[in-house]
Every structure is written in structure tokens, then in C-alpha cells.
């Protein structure tokens, strides 16, 4: 079945074959919240290394990779159905690319697709401020803020693919890209 894609379609189809691949498995170690921070720190440590000749570039690369990875993995941990989370990450042509794949349920899938639908026709900076105002008056947990900060404050390019129409299991693949500083020893 063809997946439903939101965001930048070419990004959803891009091959990450030569990237680093990590799998977070549900198992005896009990996949939990703290693993998103640990995993994104690891990815940032590894991927920012080529920028270590310049302190400024290293700090920027390390931070941007860490923030982007953390938001995507936090979402995967928070909204996932039992099962593994697959993470692929690499640097290609001065761009850090990360793809996170996990399973969500049908309700989460529809709510998320509604949000993405809204995103398509609006400026992410405006939507971010709107979402913040909504979150301030609502007791519910604020959803969508991570994605909106990525699009608005980090100029991230993103794509989301939803596969399967089973109410219990929809496979969500999120791909995101941010520009890296020009200097690296890659």
C-alpha cells in the first residue's frame, strides 16, 4: 500500500543506506523516556566529530543534531505502540539527515495527520506562537511544539509517511534534515 506523505515528498523517499543505524528495542531494559536523551546525545557526539576543527562549528553542529534527534526520538518514545524504534542518521552534502520509524495507533495517526494538514498552508513561525498561546490556556499536554520549533527556529526540512490503515498499527516514518556548518573534515 502506498504511504500517505506530508511535508517534503523527496525527503521521504531519499535513501539513507550508508547511514548509521540504531534500533531501540522494547525488552528487559524497558525502553523509556531517558533513552531519547541518551540516544540523541550519542548521535550528536558521533555526528559532530567532523566539525571539531572549529569550536564554533562544532558547538552548532552538536547542538542542532542533538536538538533535532532528541525531539524526533522523544516523539517516537512518547507516542509509540509496543515495538522497536528504528533510527537512521548521517551527514550528506553538508546536511544532517535523520529518519525515525516506529508504530503508532490509529487515533494518534489521525490526530497527527490533522496537525500536519494544518501545517501545510501556514507559516510555521505563526503556528508556533498560536500553539504556545493554546497550550498556555489548556491543561492538555501541548502537542506539535517540537515539530514547530524545528520548522520555525531550526529551518528543518521534514517529511512524514504513514503506512497501513489498521486502527491499531500505523507505521510512521519521520525524516528530517538540517543544514550543517560549511567546515568539516569529512
Amino acid at each position, binding site marked *: 500500500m502506498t504511504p500517505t506523505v506530508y511535508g517534503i515528498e523527496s525527503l521521504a523517499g531519499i535513501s539513507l543506506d550508508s547511514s548509521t543505524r540504531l534500533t531501540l528495542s522494547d525488552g528487559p531494559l524497558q525502553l523509556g*523516556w531517558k533513552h*531519547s*536523551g541518551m540516544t540523541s546525545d550519542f548521535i550528536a557526539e558521533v555526528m559532530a566529530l567532523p566539525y571539531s576543527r572549529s569550536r564554533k562549528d562544532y*558547538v*552548532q553542529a552538536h*547542538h*542542532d543534531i*542533538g*536538538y533535532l534527534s*532528541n*525531539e524526533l526520538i*522523544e516523539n517516537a518514545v*512518547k507516542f509509540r505502540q509496543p515495538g522497536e524504534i528504528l533510527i537512521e542518521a548521517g551527514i550528506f552534502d553538508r546536511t544532517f539527515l535523520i529518519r525515525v520509524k516506529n508504530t503508532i495507533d490509529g487515533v494518534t495517526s489521525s490526530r497527527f495527520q490533522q496537525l500536519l494538514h494544518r501545517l501545510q498552508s501556514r507559516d510555521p513561525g505563526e503556528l*508556533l*506562537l498560536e500553539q*504556545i*498561546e493554546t*497550550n*498556555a490556556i489548556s491543561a492538555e*499536554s*501541548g502537542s506539535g*511544539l*517540537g515539530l514547530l*520549533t524545528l520548522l520555525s*527556529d*531550526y529551518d528543518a526540512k521534514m517529511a512524514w509517511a504513514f503506512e497501513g490503515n489498521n486502527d491499531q498499527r500505523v507505521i510512521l516514518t519521520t525524516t528530517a534534515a538540517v543544514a550543517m556548518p560549511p567546515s568539516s573534515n569529512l
Partner: protein
Amino acid sequence: MEISDENFRVWAEKNEVYFDGVFRLAGPDAYAPIYSLISGLLHEGHKQVTFNLTGLEFLNSSGINLLAKLTIEARKMGDLLLVVKGTSQYPWQAKSLPNLKKLHPLVDLRLA
């Protein structure tokens, strides 16, 4: 009063709140005690309250939501001046803190 774990510390001294370390809590519920601490300070009758973020290395989007909510709370107070001290040493601050000024034009944002 202070709230902390192995990664972060937040505390108030008179009318200044200090944030230190890496804030990666799971959502509004997890940030609620910090919100209460600072919201309490905003309502103590000070003319000025300062958020000192110069030690705040990392903040996830739920943490950004916390700062934004507190800024909106300060906005409601009318004549309260909110000073936000940050640093360009941590890239997220230059990227995301200007949003606070968009929420509340009277925020005095100082990025050193």
C-alpha cells in the same frame, strides 16, 4: 527553594530565577513543579523578575513551552518587567528565545 535532578537545577534568589544544566523532562506534567515555583515568584509583587538562563545548556520543546507559558503569565501581570538573560554560547537560546519577545513585547531579552 530549589528543584533539581541529576541533570538540572532551578532555584530562585530574591527576584531572579536561575536555570542550570540540561532540561529534558517528559511534558507539561513533569515541568509543573518548576512552573509553580516560578509562577509563585511572578505573583510576589516584584516590579521586575529575571530569568537567568546563562547556565541553561539544553531545553527540549516541552521546556520551551514552560518558558513561553511563564512569559504569558508575566504578560498578564501588566506592569511587571520580565528580564531574560541568555547566552549565545548555547545555540538554542539565539534560535528560540526571540519567540518570547513576540509573545510579550515588554520582555527585556539580553543575549550576551
